[in-house]
Protein backbone atom coordinates (compact mmCIF):
# COMPACT_ATOMS: atom_id res chain seq x y z
CA UNK A 1 0.00 0.00 0.00
CA UNK A 2 2.87 2.28 0.93
CA UNK A 3 4.32 1.67 -2.57
CA UNK A 4 1.15 2.89 -4.32
CA UNK A 5 0.68 5.84 -1.98
CA UNK A 6 4.23 7.21 -2.06
CA UNK A 7 6.68 5.51 -4.40
CA UNK A 8 4.42 4.84 -7.37
CA UNK A 9 3.48 8.55 -7.97
CA UNK A 10 7.18 9.51 -7.71
CA UNK A 11 8.11 6.75 -10.18
CA UNK A 12 5.33 7.85 -12.53
CA UNK A 13 6.44 11.51 -12.35
CA UNK A 14 10.05 10.46 -12.98
CA UNK A 15 9.21 8.31 -16.03
CA UNK A 16 6.81 10.87 -17.52
CA UNK A 17 9.23 13.74 -16.93
CA UNK A 18 12.23 11.91 -18.42
CA UNK A 19 10.17 10.65 -21.39
CA UNK A 20 8.87 14.13 -22.24
CA UNK A 21 12.35 15.61 -21.82
CA UNK A 22 14.02 13.15 -24.22
CA UNK A 23 11.10 13.31 -26.69
CA UNK A 24 12.13 16.92 -27.32
CA UNK A 25 15.53 15.76 -28.61
CA UNK A 26 14.69 12.47 -30.30
CA UNK A 27 13.05 12.92 -33.72
CA UNK A 28 12.39 9.15 -34.16
CA UNK A 29 8.75 8.22 -34.80
CA UNK A 30 8.19 6.15 -31.61
CA UNK A 31 9.47 9.02 -29.46
CA UNK A 32 7.24 11.52 -31.26
CA UNK A 33 4.24 9.17 -30.99
CA UNK A 34 4.86 8.91 -27.25
CA UNK A 35 5.12 12.71 -27.01
CA UNK A 36 1.87 13.12 -28.95
CA UNK A 37 0.16 10.53 -26.77
CA UNK A 38 1.25 12.33 -23.60
CA UNK A 39 -0.21 15.59 -24.91
CA UNK A 40 -3.53 13.87 -25.72
CA UNK A 41 -3.72 12.33 -22.26
CA UNK A 42 -2.93 15.63 -20.59
CA UNK A 43 -5.61 17.46 -22.59
CA UNK A 44 -8.11 14.83 -21.38
CA UNK A 45 -6.86 15.25 -17.80
CA UNK A 46 -7.25 19.05 -18.15
CA UNK A 47 -10.88 18.47 -19.19
CA UNK A 48 -11.43 16.32 -16.11
CA UNK A 49 -9.88 19.05 -13.95
CA UNK A 50 -12.80 21.24 -15.07
CA UNK A 51 -15.24 18.60 -13.86
CA UNK A 52 -13.47 18.45 -10.49
CA UNK A 53 -13.74 22.24 -10.32
CA UNK A 54 -17.49 22.03 -10.88
CA UNK A 55 -17.88 19.32 -8.22
CA UNK A 56 -15.78 21.33 -5.76
CA UNK A 57 -17.73 24.56 -6.40
CA UNK A 58 -21.09 22.82 -6.03
CA UNK A 59 -20.05 20.97 -2.87
CA UNK A 60 -18.64 24.13 -1.25
CA UNK A 61 -21.73 26.24 -1.88
CA UNK A 62 -24.22 23.45 -1.15
CA UNK A 63 -22.57 23.00 2.25
CA UNK A 64 -22.89 26.73 2.97
CA UNK A 65 -26.56 26.71 1.99
CA UNK A 66 -27.32 23.55 4.00
CA UNK A 67 -25.69 24.99 7.14
CA UNK A 68 -27.28 28.42 6.59
CA UNK A 69 -23.92 30.16 7.26
CA UNK A 70 -24.09 33.97 7.17
CA UNK A 71 -24.17 35.16 3.56
CA UNK A 72 -25.50 31.85 2.23
CA UNK A 73 -27.74 33.88 -0.11
CA UNK A 74 -24.65 34.54 -2.25
CA UNK A 75 -24.12 30.79 -2.51
CA UNK A 76 -27.74 30.37 -3.64
CA UNK A 77 -27.11 33.03 -6.32
CA UNK A 78 -23.89 31.31 -7.41
CA UNK A 79 -25.56 27.90 -7.66
CA UNK A 80 -28.58 29.34 -9.51
CA UNK A 81 -26.40 31.24 -11.98
CA UNK A 82 -24.18 28.21 -12.49
CA UNK A 83 -27.13 25.85 -13.07
CA UNK A 84 -28.92 28.20 -15.47
CA UNK A 85 -25.78 28.83 -17.54
CA UNK A 86 -24.88 25.12 -17.53
CA UNK A 87 -28.35 24.01 -18.67
CA UNK A 88 -28.58 26.68 -21.37
CA UNK A 89 -25.03 26.00 -22.54
CA UNK A 90 -25.58 22.24 -22.69
CA UNK A 91 -28.99 22.27 -24.37
CA UNK A 92 -28.92 25.41 -26.51
CA UNK A 93 -25.22 25.59 -27.41
CA UNK A 94 -22.80 28.49 -27.62
CA UNK A 95 -22.70 31.29 -30.17
CA UNK A 96 -21.45 30.75 -33.69
CA UNK A 97 -20.94 33.29 -36.44
CA UNK A 98 -24.40 34.13 -37.86
CA UNK A 99 -26.13 31.96 -35.26
CA UNK A 100 -27.67 33.40 -32.10
CA UNK A 101 -28.46 31.09 -29.21
CA UNK A 102 -29.98 31.45 -25.74
CA UNK A 103 -26.46 31.07 -24.33
CA UNK A 104 -25.36 33.98 -26.49
CA UNK A 105 -28.25 36.08 -25.18
CA UNK A 106 -27.20 35.31 -21.58
CA UNK A 107 -23.60 36.17 -22.43
CA UNK A 108 -24.53 39.48 -24.06
CA UNK A 109 -27.07 40.60 -21.49
CA UNK A 110 -25.70 39.19 -18.24
CA UNK A 111 -22.02 38.25 -18.43
CA UNK A 112 -20.81 41.27 -20.38
CA UNK A 113 -22.64 43.95 -18.32
CA UNK A 114 -21.73 42.33 -15.00
CA UNK A 115 -18.05 41.77 -15.74
CA UNK A 116 -17.74 45.18 -17.44
CA UNK A 117 -19.30 46.86 -14.38
CA UNK A 118 -16.92 45.10 -12.01
CA UNK A 119 -13.92 46.11 -14.09
CA UNK A 120 -15.15 49.67 -14.68
CA UNK A 121 -15.39 50.37 -10.94
CA UNK A 122 -11.62 49.83 -10.77
CA UNK A 123 -11.09 53.21 -12.47
CA UNK A 124 -12.75 54.91 -9.50
CA UNK A 125 -10.89 52.89 -6.87
CA UNK A 126 -7.55 53.39 -8.61
CA UNK A 127 -8.08 57.16 -8.84
CA UNK A 128 -8.93 57.35 -5.14
CA UNK A 129 -6.07 55.05 -4.10
CA UNK A 130 -3.53 56.89 -6.27
CA UNK A 131 -4.57 60.22 -4.73
CA UNK A 132 -4.14 58.90 -1.17
CA UNK A 133 -1.18 56.54 -1.43
CA UNK A 134 1.09 57.82 -4.20
CA UNK A 135 3.32 60.03 -2.03
CA UNK A 136 7.03 60.89 -2.34
CA UNK A 137 7.97 59.74 1.17
CA UNK A 138 11.35 58.18 0.33
CA UNK A 139 13.87 58.44 -2.52
CA UNK A 140 12.62 55.14 -4.02
CA UNK A 141 8.98 56.21 -3.75
CA UNK A 142 9.91 59.54 -5.40
CA UNK A 143 11.59 57.76 -8.34
CA UNK A 144 8.52 55.55 -8.75
CA UNK A 145 6.25 58.58 -8.50
CA UNK A 146 8.11 60.52 -11.20
CA UNK A 147 8.25 57.52 -13.56
CA UNK A 148 4.58 56.76 -12.90
CA UNK A 149 3.49 60.34 -13.59
CA UNK A 150 5.44 60.45 -16.87
CA UNK A 151 3.88 57.17 -18.01
CA UNK A 152 0.35 58.14 -16.86
CA UNK A 153 0.36 61.16 -19.13
CA UNK A 154 2.85 60.05 -21.75
CA UNK A 155 0.92 56.97 -22.86
CA UNK A 156 -2.34 58.77 -23.73
CA UNK A 157 -3.05 61.19 -26.62
CA UNK A 158 -2.99 64.27 -24.37
CA UNK A 159 0.68 63.50 -23.65
CA UNK A 160 1.58 64.37 -27.24
CA UNK A 161 0.75 67.99 -26.51
CA UNK A 162 3.62 68.16 -23.97
CA UNK A 163 6.99 68.20 -25.79
CA UNK A 164 9.19 65.10 -25.35
CA UNK A 165 6.81 63.52 -22.79
CA UNK A 166 5.79 60.58 -24.99
CA UNK A 167 9.44 59.92 -25.88
CA UNK A 168 10.31 59.88 -22.20
CA UNK A 169 7.42 57.53 -21.41
CA UNK A 170 8.49 55.23 -24.26
CA UNK A 171 12.07 55.26 -22.94
CA UNK A 172 10.89 54.28 -19.44
CA UNK A 173 8.83 51.41 -20.87
CA UNK A 174 11.60 50.16 -23.16
CA UNK A 175 14.50 50.48 -20.70
CA UNK A 176 14.13 50.51 -16.89
CA UNK A 177 10.71 48.83 -16.91
CA UNK A 178 11.77 46.23 -19.47
CA UNK A 179 14.99 45.45 -17.57
CA UNK A 180 13.06 44.86 -14.37
CA UNK A 181 10.61 42.53 -16.14
CA UNK A 182 13.44 40.65 -17.80
CA UNK A 183 15.01 40.04 -14.39
CA UNK A 184 11.69 38.74 -13.07
CA UNK A 185 11.21 36.48 -16.12
CA UNK A 186 14.69 34.99 -15.80
CA UNK A 187 14.17 34.36 -12.09
CA UNK A 188 10.80 32.71 -12.71
CA UNK A 189 12.21 30.58 -15.55
CA UNK A 190 15.20 29.38 -13.49
CA UNK A 191 12.91 28.62 -10.54
CA UNK A 192 10.61 26.69 -12.91
CA UNK A 193 13.51 24.58 -14.18
CA UNK A 194 14.73 23.93 -10.65
CA UNK A 195 11.23 22.93 -9.52
CA UNK A 196 10.79 20.61 -12.53
CA UNK A 197 14.10 18.86 -11.79
CA UNK A 198 13.09 18.48 -8.13
CA UNK A 199 9.74 16.94 -9.11
CA UNK A 200 11.26 14.59 -11.73
CA UNK A 201 13.82 13.28 -9.25
CA UNK A 202 11.35 12.98 -6.39
CA UNK A 203 12.88 15.67 -4.18
CA UNK A 204 9.78 17.84 -4.35
CA UNK A 205 6.74 15.87 -3.17
CA UNK A 206 4.23 18.52 -2.12
CA UNK A 207 2.15 17.84 -5.25
CA UNK A 208 1.16 14.50 -3.65
CA UNK A 209 -0.33 16.30 -0.62
CA UNK A 210 0.68 15.81 2.97
CA UNK A 211 3.18 18.66 2.96
CA UNK A 212 6.41 16.60 2.92
Amino acid at each position, binding site marked *: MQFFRRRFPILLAFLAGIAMFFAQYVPAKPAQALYSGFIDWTIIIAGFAGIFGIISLTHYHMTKVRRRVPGYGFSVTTLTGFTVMLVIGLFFGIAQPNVKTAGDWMFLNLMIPMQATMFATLAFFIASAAFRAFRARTAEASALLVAGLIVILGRVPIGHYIPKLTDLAAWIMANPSMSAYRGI*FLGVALAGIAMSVRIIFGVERTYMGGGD
Partner: protein
Amino acid sequence: MKRFLEWFLVLDRRIIYTLVALAVIVPLLFPLNLRIYPTPEVESVHESLNELPAGSPVLVSVDFDPAALPELYPMLISMLRQSFQQKLKVFITCLWPNGVNLAPMAIDQVITDMKKLDPEFDVVDGEDYVYLGYQPGTVLVMLKMAQDIRKAFPKDVAKRETSTLPIFEDTWKLSQMKYMVMIEAGDTGDYWIVYGTTPNKVPVGAGVTGVMAPQYFPWLQAKQVDGIIAGLKGAAEWEVLLGYAGSATKSMDPQSIVHALIFLAIILANIFAFWLAAIKRKEERS
Protein backbone atom coordinates in the same frame (compact mmCIF):
# COMPACT_ATOMS: atom_id res chain seq x y z
CA MET B 1 -4.78 77.24 5.22
CA LYS B 2 -3.84 74.32 7.44
CA ARG B 3 -7.48 73.27 7.69
CA PHE B 4 -7.89 73.39 3.92
CA LEU B 5 -4.76 71.27 3.40
CA GLU B 6 -5.95 68.72 5.96
CA TRP B 7 -9.38 68.61 4.31
CA PHE B 8 -7.86 68.17 0.85
CA LEU B 9 -5.50 65.37 1.86
CA VAL B 10 -8.36 63.29 3.27
CA LEU B 11 -10.76 64.28 0.51
CA ASP B 12 -14.03 62.36 0.60
CA ARG B 13 -13.80 59.54 -1.92
CA ARG B 14 -17.26 60.46 -3.28
CA ILE B 15 -15.81 63.75 -4.55
CA ILE B 16 -13.03 61.85 -6.34
CA TYR B 17 -15.55 59.40 -7.81
CA THR B 18 -17.71 62.27 -9.04
CA LEU B 19 -14.73 63.98 -10.66
CA VAL B 20 -13.71 60.74 -12.39
CA ALA B 21 -17.29 60.21 -13.60
CA LEU B 22 -17.38 63.76 -15.00
CA ALA B 23 -13.97 63.28 -16.62
CA VAL B 24 -15.42 60.31 -18.48
CA ILE B 25 -18.88 61.66 -19.33
CA VAL B 26 -18.06 65.23 -20.40
CA PRO B 27 -15.50 64.32 -23.14
CA LEU B 28 -17.92 61.68 -24.42
CA LEU B 29 -20.61 64.34 -24.80
CA PHE B 30 -18.25 67.04 -26.07
CA PRO B 31 -15.35 65.30 -27.85
CA LEU B 32 -11.99 67.05 -27.94
CA ASN B 33 -10.83 64.93 -30.89
CA LEU B 34 -7.29 64.67 -29.55
CA ARG B 35 -4.92 63.48 -32.21
CA ILE B 36 -3.72 59.87 -31.96
CA TYR B 37 -0.18 59.11 -33.11
CA PRO B 38 0.55 55.42 -33.78
CA THR B 39 3.56 54.03 -31.93
CA PRO B 40 6.21 51.89 -33.69
CA GLU B 41 5.00 48.81 -31.77
CA VAL B 42 1.51 49.04 -33.29
CA GLU B 43 2.80 50.10 -36.72
CA SER B 44 4.90 46.97 -36.78
CA VAL B 45 1.84 44.68 -36.37
CA HIS B 46 -0.10 46.63 -38.98
CA GLU B 47 2.79 46.59 -41.45
CA SER B 48 3.54 42.89 -40.99
CA LEU B 49 -0.06 42.03 -41.78
CA ASN B 50 -0.08 44.52 -44.65
CA GLU B 51 2.86 42.78 -46.31
CA LEU B 52 1.14 39.38 -46.42
CA PRO B 53 -0.16 38.32 -49.82
CA ALA B 54 -3.85 37.41 -50.19
CA GLY B 55 -4.63 33.88 -49.07
CA SER B 56 -1.93 33.79 -46.37
CA PRO B 57 -3.04 31.92 -43.25
CA VAL B 58 -3.12 33.95 -40.04
CA LEU B 59 -4.05 32.89 -36.53
CA VAL B 60 -5.98 34.92 -33.98
CA SER B 61 -6.23 33.72 -30.40
CA VAL B 62 -9.05 35.29 -28.42
CA ASP B 63 -7.85 34.82 -24.85
CA PHE B 64 -9.90 37.30 -22.86
CA ASP B 65 -13.29 37.64 -21.23
CA PRO B 66 -15.87 40.45 -20.99
CA ALA B 67 -13.95 42.15 -18.14
CA ALA B 68 -11.24 43.15 -20.63
CA LEU B 69 -13.68 43.68 -23.50
CA PRO B 70 -13.48 47.51 -23.72
CA GLU B 71 -9.69 47.35 -24.22
CA LEU B 72 -9.27 44.17 -26.24
CA TYR B 73 -12.43 43.77 -28.31
CA PRO B 74 -11.54 46.75 -30.59
CA MET B 75 -8.23 44.96 -31.36
CA LEU B 76 -10.13 41.85 -32.38
CA ILE B 77 -12.33 43.97 -34.63
CA SER B 78 -9.28 45.65 -36.21
CA MET B 79 -7.52 42.32 -36.72
CA LEU B 80 -10.53 40.78 -38.46
CA ARG B 81 -11.12 43.94 -40.47
CA GLN B 82 -7.56 44.08 -41.76
CA SER B 83 -7.46 40.33 -42.44
CA PHE B 84 -10.75 40.31 -44.34
CA GLN B 85 -9.75 43.42 -46.29
CA GLN B 86 -6.55 41.71 -47.40
CA LYS B 87 -8.33 38.40 -48.08
CA LEU B 88 -6.20 36.49 -45.59
CA LYS B 89 -7.33 33.08 -44.31
CA VAL B 90 -8.22 33.61 -40.67
CA PHE B 91 -8.06 30.83 -38.08
CA ILE B 92 -9.59 31.86 -34.75
CA THR B 93 -9.10 30.02 -31.47
CA CYS B 94 -10.11 30.67 -27.87
CA LEU B 95 -8.24 29.40 -24.83
CA TRP B 96 -10.32 31.28 -22.27
CA PRO B 97 -13.68 29.61 -21.51
CA ASN B 98 -15.42 32.90 -20.65
CA GLY B 99 -14.43 34.48 -23.93
CA VAL B 100 -15.86 31.85 -26.22
CA ASN B 101 -18.79 34.01 -27.36
CA LEU B 102 -16.68 37.08 -28.21
CA ALA B 103 -15.26 35.94 -31.54
CA PRO B 104 -18.68 35.22 -33.16
CA MET B 105 -19.83 38.69 -32.04
CA ALA B 106 -16.77 40.28 -33.60
CA ILE B 107 -17.02 38.25 -36.84
CA ASP B 108 -20.68 39.23 -37.28
CA GLN B 109 -19.92 42.89 -36.53
CA VAL B 110 -16.99 43.08 -38.96
CA ILE B 111 -18.90 41.35 -41.76
CA THR B 112 -21.86 43.74 -41.25
CA ASP B 113 -19.54 46.79 -41.23
CA MET B 114 -17.63 45.63 -44.30
CA LYS B 115 -20.85 44.97 -46.20
CA LYS B 116 -21.97 48.53 -45.44
CA LEU B 117 -18.73 49.80 -47.00
CA ASP B 118 -18.79 47.39 -49.92
CA PRO B 119 -22.08 45.59 -50.69
CA GLU B 120 -20.16 42.99 -52.72
CA PHE B 121 -17.91 42.05 -49.80
CA ASP B 122 -18.22 38.38 -48.90
CA VAL B 123 -16.34 35.87 -46.76
CA VAL B 124 -17.24 32.21 -46.44
CA ASP B 125 -17.19 30.44 -43.07
CA GLY B 126 -14.90 27.41 -43.29
CA GLU B 127 -13.21 28.70 -46.42
CA ASP B 128 -12.02 32.24 -45.67
CA TYR B 129 -12.21 32.00 -41.90
CA VAL B 130 -12.92 29.44 -39.24
CA TYR B 131 -13.77 29.79 -35.58
CA LEU B 132 -12.49 26.77 -33.70
CA GLY B 133 -13.96 27.67 -30.31
CA TYR B 134 -12.60 26.81 -26.87
CA GLN B 135 -10.38 23.89 -26.01
CA PRO B 136 -9.11 23.22 -22.45
CA GLY B 137 -5.44 22.60 -21.78
CA THR B 138 -3.81 25.92 -22.81
CA VAL B 139 -0.15 24.90 -23.33
CA LEU B 140 -1.11 21.41 -24.42
CA VAL B 141 -3.46 22.79 -27.05
CA MET B 142 -0.57 24.88 -28.40
CA LEU B 143 1.74 21.84 -28.47
CA LYS B 144 -0.96 19.85 -30.25
CA MET B 145 -1.53 22.69 -32.74
CA ALA B 146 2.18 22.51 -33.56
CA GLN B 147 1.58 18.92 -34.68
CA ASP B 148 -1.86 19.23 -36.23
CA ILE B 149 -4.48 21.93 -35.65
CA ARG B 150 -7.20 19.54 -36.85
CA LYS B 151 -6.34 17.16 -34.01
CA ALA B 152 -6.20 19.92 -31.41
CA PHE B 153 -9.63 21.09 -32.62
CA PRO B 154 -11.37 18.08 -34.22
CA LYS B 155 -14.54 20.18 -34.70
CA ASP B 156 -15.22 23.89 -35.08
CA VAL B 157 -17.97 25.72 -33.14
CA ALA B 158 -20.52 24.77 -35.80
CA LYS B 159 -19.61 21.13 -35.01
CA ARG B 160 -18.14 20.50 -38.49
CA GLU B 161 -15.18 18.13 -38.77
CA THR B 162 -12.20 20.43 -39.22
CA SER B 163 -10.48 17.89 -41.47
CA THR B 164 -13.29 18.40 -44.01
CA LEU B 165 -13.10 22.22 -44.13
CA PRO B 166 -11.54 23.82 -47.24
CA ILE B 167 -9.54 26.31 -45.14
CA PHE B 168 -7.45 23.39 -43.80
CA GLU B 169 -6.51 22.09 -47.25
CA ASP B 170 -3.14 23.87 -47.33
CA THR B 171 -2.75 24.78 -43.67
CA TRP B 172 -2.98 22.32 -40.81
CA LYS B 173 -0.18 23.10 -38.38
CA LEU B 174 1.02 26.09 -36.43
CA SER B 175 4.32 26.51 -38.28
CA GLN B 176 2.39 27.12 -41.53
CA MET B 177 0.82 30.30 -40.13
CA LYS B 178 2.30 33.42 -41.70
CA TYR B 179 1.36 35.62 -38.76
CA MET B 180 -0.43 35.46 -35.46
CA VAL B 181 -2.14 38.07 -33.33
CA MET B 182 -2.82 36.97 -29.79
CA ILE B 183 -5.28 39.06 -27.84
CA GLU B 184 -4.54 38.49 -24.19
CA ALA B 185 -5.87 39.39 -20.77
CA GLY B 186 -3.72 36.91 -18.82
CA ASP B 187 -0.75 34.58 -18.87
CA THR B 188 -1.81 32.69 -22.00
CA GLY B 189 0.20 35.14 -24.11
CA ASP B 190 3.44 34.12 -22.39
CA TYR B 191 2.62 30.47 -23.09
CA TRP B 192 1.93 31.27 -26.75
CA ILE B 193 5.39 32.83 -27.06
CA VAL B 194 7.24 30.08 -25.20
CA TYR B 195 5.41 27.00 -26.50
CA GLY B 196 3.64 28.15 -29.65
CA THR B 197 5.08 30.91 -31.78
CA THR B 198 8.82 30.85 -30.98
CA PRO B 199 9.45 27.10 -31.52
CA ASN B 200 7.30 27.17 -34.68
CA LYS B 201 8.83 30.42 -35.99
CA VAL B 202 5.50 32.21 -36.32
CA PRO B 203 5.79 36.01 -36.13
CA VAL B 204 3.35 37.27 -33.52
CA GLY B 205 1.78 40.56 -32.55
CA ALA B 206 0.61 40.86 -28.95
CA GLY B 207 -2.63 42.67 -28.22
CA VAL B 208 -2.68 43.07 -24.45
CA THR B 209 -4.36 45.10 -21.72
CA GLY B 210 -2.64 48.34 -20.66
CA VAL B 211 -1.44 46.93 -17.35
CA MET B 212 0.10 43.89 -19.06
CA ALA B 213 1.99 45.85 -21.71
CA PRO B 214 5.27 46.40 -19.77
CA GLN B 215 5.81 42.65 -19.36
CA TYR B 216 5.82 42.19 -23.16
CA PHE B 217 8.69 44.59 -23.83
CA PRO B 218 11.40 41.95 -23.06
CA TRP B 219 9.77 39.70 -25.70
CA LEU B 220 9.73 42.65 -28.12
CA GLN B 221 13.40 43.44 -27.63
CA ALA B 222 14.28 39.76 -28.05
CA LYS B 223 12.25 39.83 -31.31
CA GLN B 224 10.04 37.02 -30.04
CA VAL B 225 7.15 39.44 -30.44
CA ASP B 226 6.82 41.49 -33.59
CA GLY B 227 4.78 44.31 -32.04
CA ILE B 228 2.63 45.25 -29.08
CA ILE B 229 -0.85 46.71 -29.15
CA ALA B 230 -1.01 48.08 -25.63
CA GLY B 231 -4.45 48.62 -24.14
CA LEU B 232 -7.14 50.93 -25.42
CA LYS B 233 -4.57 53.41 -26.76
CA GLY B 234 -2.93 50.67 -28.84
CA ALA B 235 -6.34 49.63 -30.15
CA ALA B 236 -7.04 53.26 -31.11
CA GLU B 237 -3.68 53.47 -32.91
CA TRP B 238 -4.56 50.40 -34.97
CA GLU B 239 -7.91 51.97 -35.87
CA VAL B 240 -6.07 55.11 -37.00
CA LEU B 241 -3.76 53.02 -39.18
CA LEU B 242 -6.76 51.27 -40.72
CA GLY B 243 -8.47 54.61 -41.28
CA TYR B 244 -11.63 54.24 -39.26
CA ALA B 245 -12.85 55.53 -35.89
CA GLY B 246 -14.06 52.62 -33.78
CA SER B 247 -14.87 52.39 -30.09
CA ALA B 248 -11.19 52.69 -29.06
CA THR B 249 -10.69 55.97 -30.94
CA LYS B 250 -13.87 57.37 -29.39
CA SER B 251 -12.61 56.39 -25.93
CA MET B 252 -9.33 58.27 -26.22
CA ASP B 253 -10.70 61.65 -25.07
CA PRO B 254 -12.20 60.33 -21.80
CA GLN B 255 -9.09 58.24 -21.14
CA SER B 256 -6.83 61.26 -21.66
CA ILE B 257 -8.90 63.46 -19.37
CA VAL B 258 -9.07 60.81 -16.61
CA HIS B 259 -5.31 60.32 -16.82
CA ALA B 260 -4.80 64.09 -16.64
CA LEU B 261 -7.12 64.27 -13.63
CA ILE B 262 -5.21 61.53 -11.79
CA PHE B 263 -1.91 63.23 -12.72
CA LEU B 264 -3.11 66.54 -11.27
CA ALA B 265 -4.57 64.89 -8.17
CA ILE B 266 -1.28 63.12 -7.39
CA ILE B 267 0.79 66.28 -7.97
CA LEU B 268 -1.51 68.40 -5.79
CA ALA B 269 -1.67 65.75 -3.05
CA ASN B 270 2.13 65.64 -2.90
CA ILE B 271 2.58 69.43 -2.90
CA PHE B 272 -0.09 69.85 -0.20
CA ALA B 273 1.39 67.01 1.89
CA PHE B 274 4.81 68.75 1.87
CA TRP B 275 3.19 72.08 2.59
CA LEU B 276 1.22 70.68 5.55
CA ALA B 277 4.33 68.98 6.93
CA ALA B 278 6.20 72.31 6.70
CA ILE B 279 3.40 74.11 8.57
CA LYS B 280 3.41 71.46 11.30
CA ARG B 281 7.20 71.64 11.67
CA LYS B 282 6.97 75.43 11.97
CA GLU B 283 4.27 75.11 14.62
CA GLU B 284 6.36 72.63 16.60
CA ARG B 285 9.37 74.97 16.55
CA SER B 286 7.40 78.02 17.68
